[in-house]
């Protein structure tokens, strides 16, 4: 059988940070976690529908609005610094990248402090009622995600300060940023359901 060369792969890029399969992998991970959040929120509404009378149940205050709102502002802010870091990385500006990701980690740590204040001010324990259980679970789930995003980005920051990344080799930055946007973005529906809805409905 005759064999002929159709495509010469030696001309194709080896480090293609924008079209790398890992980007799709992280996107799939995001889809899974979004599905988990959807299940958690559906469970919240199911328990709400099953409860006769007010929701949160009588005698329980809805979570205070101050600290989650601080959290809601800080997380997108940290996404902006992530985006700014990525722009630096695209231009080969290693310093801007390093400062940007470090700032994001810092902002997210601040956000975690705000989050901890909020959790401390919950009016209900997880073992008090099904409302308490689902409230603590959703909050804890998101808290864990912020922690893992911070840990991952901290590693990226260490490598950024050591000058590892450059425009060709910035896959780590790009996928970490994608995950970061997800962790920041997924808080919006959580905030709307857990914090805002009980006040306006």
């Amino acid at each position: 059988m005759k064999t002929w060369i159709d495509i010469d792969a030696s001309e194709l890029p080896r480090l293609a940070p924008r079209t790398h399969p890992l980007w799709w992998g992280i996107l799939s991970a995001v889809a899974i976690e979004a599905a988990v959040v959807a299940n958690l929120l559906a469970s919240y509404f199911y328990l709400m529908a099953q409860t006769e009378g007010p929701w949160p149940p009588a005698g329980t205050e809805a979570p205070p609005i101050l600290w989650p709102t601080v959290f809601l502002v800080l997380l997108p802010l940290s996404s902006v610094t992530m985006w700014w870091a990525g722009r630096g990385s695209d231009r080969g500006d290693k310093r801007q990248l390093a400062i940007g990701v470090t700032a994001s980690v810092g902002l997210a740590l601040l956000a975690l402090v705000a989050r901890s204040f909020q959790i401390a001010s919950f009016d209900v324990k997880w073992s008090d009622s099904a409302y308490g259980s689902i409230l603590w679970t959703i909050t804890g789930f998101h808290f864990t995600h912020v922690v893992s995003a911070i840990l991952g980005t901290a590693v990226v920051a260490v490598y950024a300060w050591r000058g590892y990344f450059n425009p060709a080799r910035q896959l780590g930055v790009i996928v970490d940023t994608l995950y970061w946007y997800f962790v920041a973005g997924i808080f919006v529906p959580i905030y709307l359901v857990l914090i805002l809805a009980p006040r306006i409905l």
Partner: protein
Amino acid sequence: MSRVPENPEATTSIRDESDPQMRARLAELEKTWQSPRGFIGWFTHVNHTSIGKRFLITAMVFFLLSGLLALAMRLQLLSPLNDVLDAQTYNQVMTVHGTAMMFLFAIPAMEGIAIYLAPLMVGARDMAFPRLNAFGYYVYLIGGTVFFLSLPFGLAPDAGWFNYVPLSGPEHSAGYGIDVWTTMITFIEVSALTAAVELIVTILKLRVPGMSLNRMPIFVWAVLVMSFMILFAMPSVIVASSFLMMDRLVDTAFFDVTLGGSPLLWQHLFWFFGHPEVYIILVPALGIVTSIVITFTQRPLFGYTAVVLALVGVGMISFGLWVHHMYTTGLPLMGRSFFMAASTMIAIPSGVQIYCWIATIWGSRPRYASPMIWVLGFFAIFIAGGLTGVMVASVPFDRQVHDTYFVVAHFHYVLIGGAVFPLMAGLHYWFPKITGRMIGEQLGKWSCAVTFVGFNLTFFPMHQLGLEGMPRRVYTYLPDLGWGDLNLLATGGSFVMAAGFGMILVNIIVSLRSGEVAGDNPWNASTLEWATASPPLNCNFAEQVSVKTANPLWDWHEQNQRAMVSGLSTTQRETIVTTLLDALPQSVMILPGPTIWPFVSAVVASICFLGLIFSPWFFVVGVFGTFATFVMWFIPPRYTTDPNADLPEEAKS
């Protein structure tokens, strides 16, 4: 991208073994893709052929063990008031049988066959994330083994495979049994999810140039649909079992009615996973059947587009049916009617597939080799199961037979017919590719016949038993109910079926030792997995190809020429990346080599999940512990010595 060769004779294939330069190239390539040998080396393998084979073998071991449990149950039910197993043991055996067959056999076996074949079928050198693949396997191996060991230690769960609350809640199930279920099932689902991500990205991005989505083999389509289903179904069972875990461990109140919880929440979450789960097993099986029908009729598939749409349709509709498991829970009439209509709707895409198979076979001269015989067995059993499926989809009928042996008969027809028979067909079909030897043809056919007869003897009487009112999950029954004869028949049948599976095992062992040596493409099939040696090379393909049609091997033969990709490195693991829809060349992915870290990560994760049975603090330990091992796993390998080592020349500035 493609260009007509100016002088096709001038270029030669890398497998032209007369050329010493080419031979040296191939040897170097094979060395690059070689998995380490030795005991420690075993834990570092990442090649998909190696991991896929392990998934398959492990799943088969769990299948045999769960099958033995089924025999124990049948022995107990042989006659009224039998005392082979006491009630408690029977419940444990039944729960472990059901759970293991679903979570430790059916899903991993389908994943295994997909992990082994999908990359070969799309012409890739390996999967997109080889280390994640290895991690998923160890998670499955450890989780599955712990789950199974709970039985001899007397710690096995005993609330059935769907583990309903409140029976499985802290009040009614003290002890560690249910905790083993909740933690290990959640843990094993992690492995299903990693496999799904892996398969999706491999199929979407690592297809060889020219294999646009409309030229992808049907099996690959089926695997893609299965993976997306896993992606959206597994989170529900993870959420459900996490709720139950927390109810049992830290006193949350998700399912505690006195504190505002709802046991029905469990059923909704479980079945939102549990129903798609059935199709997660069925869809790849349909892909196997289609591959075999194409090869053994030697024809392109009739209605390719219709079959693809049917597969996607089955995947989507299956997410809208879960409530038909809950007809007797007092749902509103409107809800029941909706889900009854939705359940019946699934017959439409299933029917489309069956008609396309019939049209493909029609007027051809099928070659009735052993894989095709297993496919015929599948047709008979699965269609019978489908008919009872239409019956139980109907609310009034279901309310009569709910929780009886009629349902047991129905789902064994669907699952054994819809998954085990196709798997066995696939085993006979791809055995030469995986092992390099043909499987014994005579014994292959006989084992199919014996299994078929045994299966029907076992499960057909259960329809009648169910109609007579025998409830499922009972460890015994009274003599004057008149169920003795049919149960005796079923038990006899189960041993015939076991003999059939024993024959398959013997056939495999004998064929491995002394089967006829298979060539690259013994069945004259049309898909790319047959375009490499049997068993496949370490690098899968000496040269990645570029395809122009949907049945490349047949067309190469007809045109007596083929196109390929050149310019991939022989000293690092490279595979070509293409665009999502049209598969135009885009870049080259450098894949990571063997490493021990996925194994270490899996061990750390296992310890933490096991710890969760005893203390919630293992959650915190788990988050940080697995994170640390992941970092070790992802650290750029050569960074420590030369920060620019993996960069192309022009970027090293």
